[in-house]
């Protein structure tokens, strides 16, 4: 598993367990889960956008994006009591509700991002020396992406239109309006633009969530069916791509086996293909544009 995708992993694990035991999660809990997941996506994408530019020695993007990322983590802390929102998604629902002025905090965060992010996008788009490093660098072919079933921004930058929030989909995304950006170029620039577009989509998603979130309980006290062993599987869209969790519970409800599959499984092998023929100095750019997880792969 990977600590930067803690919400995605907790959500995938909870959904797999809920599938195994047939637990219905209260609507408000699914909306709060989505709010956390989108905050996580925002924070990580902003961190990545800055870091990719930093690897082209464009430190200003890094500084600005890092500042925005810090604001998101602080709002997450204020809303849910943890900067990375660890242990907030639990089987059956969520561990805690939004703190009292949470909606206000989220709203002012969105105002800030909407004000500052377009300027950063413009700066990226209009800086020729930066574009020179990212456009046409580390090209990954759509055929390889399809062959490996590679998800996330790596897949979507190379023409594979897959997003677990759409297919197979899970609530509340079926009632929310959002687009899944796809590009064909497959270079560092395309992977950066996918992230930029996804930041914009996450902002609109969070906006919808805060406005439409239903009231009600946030946790279902599960009555486990303990008569027979059961299995559950879930696919959740983390910021890096689709996180899969499979588990098997025994007759008492204890977990017998559990497998967590990080999106990096299908991205690490393709990094090798993407760097082929590129100069050594571009390796950090290629690598950061993939931003595969070490711990997601090994832990």
């Amino acid at each position, binding site marked *: *598993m*990977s*600590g*930067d995708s*803690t919400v995605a992993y907790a959500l995938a694990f909870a959904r797999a367990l809920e599938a195994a035991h047939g637990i219905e999660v209260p609507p408000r809990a699914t909306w709060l889960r989505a709010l956390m997941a989108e905050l996580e996506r925002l924070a990580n994408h902003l961190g990545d956008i800055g870091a990719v530019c930093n690897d082209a020695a464009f430190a*200003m993007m890094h*500084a600005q994006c*890092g*500042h925005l*990322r*810090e604001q998101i*983590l*602080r709002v997450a*802390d*204020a809303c849910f009591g943890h*900067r*990375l929102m*660890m242990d907030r998604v639990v089987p059956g629902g969520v561990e805690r509700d939004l703190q009292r002025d949470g909606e206000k905090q989220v709203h002012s965060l969105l105002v800030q991002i909407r004000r500052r992010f377009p*300027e*950063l996008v*413009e*700066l990226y788009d209009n800086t020729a020396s930066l574009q020179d490093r990212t456009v046409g660098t580390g090209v990954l072919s759509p055929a390889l992406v399809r062959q490996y079933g590679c998800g996330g921004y790596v897949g979507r930058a190379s023409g594979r239109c897959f997003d677990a929030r759409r297919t197979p989909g899970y609530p509340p995304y079926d009632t929310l309006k959002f687009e899944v950006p796809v590009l064909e170029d497959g270079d560092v620039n395309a992977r950066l633009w996918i992230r930029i577009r996804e930041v914009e989509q996450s902002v609109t998603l969070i906006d919808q969530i805060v406005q439409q979130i239903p009231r009600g309980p946030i946790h279902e006290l599960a009555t486990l069916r303990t008569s027979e062993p059961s299995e559950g599987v879930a696919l959740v869209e983390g910021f890096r791509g689709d996180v899969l969790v499979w588990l098997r519970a025994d007759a008492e409800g204890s977990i017998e086996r559990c497998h967590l599959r990080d999106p990096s499984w299908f991205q690490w092998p393709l990094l090798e293909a993407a760097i082929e023929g590129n100069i050594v100095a571009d390796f950090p750019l290629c690598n950061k544009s993939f931003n595969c*997880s*070490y*711990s997601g792969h*090994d*832990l």
Partner: protein
Amino acid sequence: MLFKSLVHGPLTEAAPAADDGGLAELAAQVDRAARQRLGRTLSIREVDAGSCNGCELEIHALNNIVYDLERFGLRFVASPRHADVLLVTGPVTINMREALERTYQATPSPKWVVAVGDCAQDGGVFAASYATVGGVSAVLPVDLHIRGCPPSPTALLRGLLALLETVQTGAKATPLAASPPAES
């Protein structure tokens, strides 16, 4: 945008917002202690001994413009051979044990080991896993533990201050071979 950056004040929290508690005070303390003991620099080598990368995110945040660790003379280096402090995260996995030991051996004395996060303390949620040998102290002499899952950047700063003060007073058993360099 570039012009705005020139005329706009820095985003670094020299006088941090109220929600950040005693960061300014803490910052000043770190600064004083670091200068007294080590002139202006303390080099840190981060070692991931098997963490989930959560601690790395917050350690990384120390370098952002809000916390701006380098203003205190604390900086991250790319090799243990350049380091005064090893900042170790994660439960020590069996596969990383030897790498961690070799990193320690490659670090020149005087040196200090800081274990960051609950996993580094005692294995945390990974304790008793077949793939881990436990906390950092199972492998190396640890001078300081910074708790948290993960510890916030403020907690990390506070921890580094504690280390600097320990170093200064010589309270720990760690041999202090070098005398404090004179301030320039």
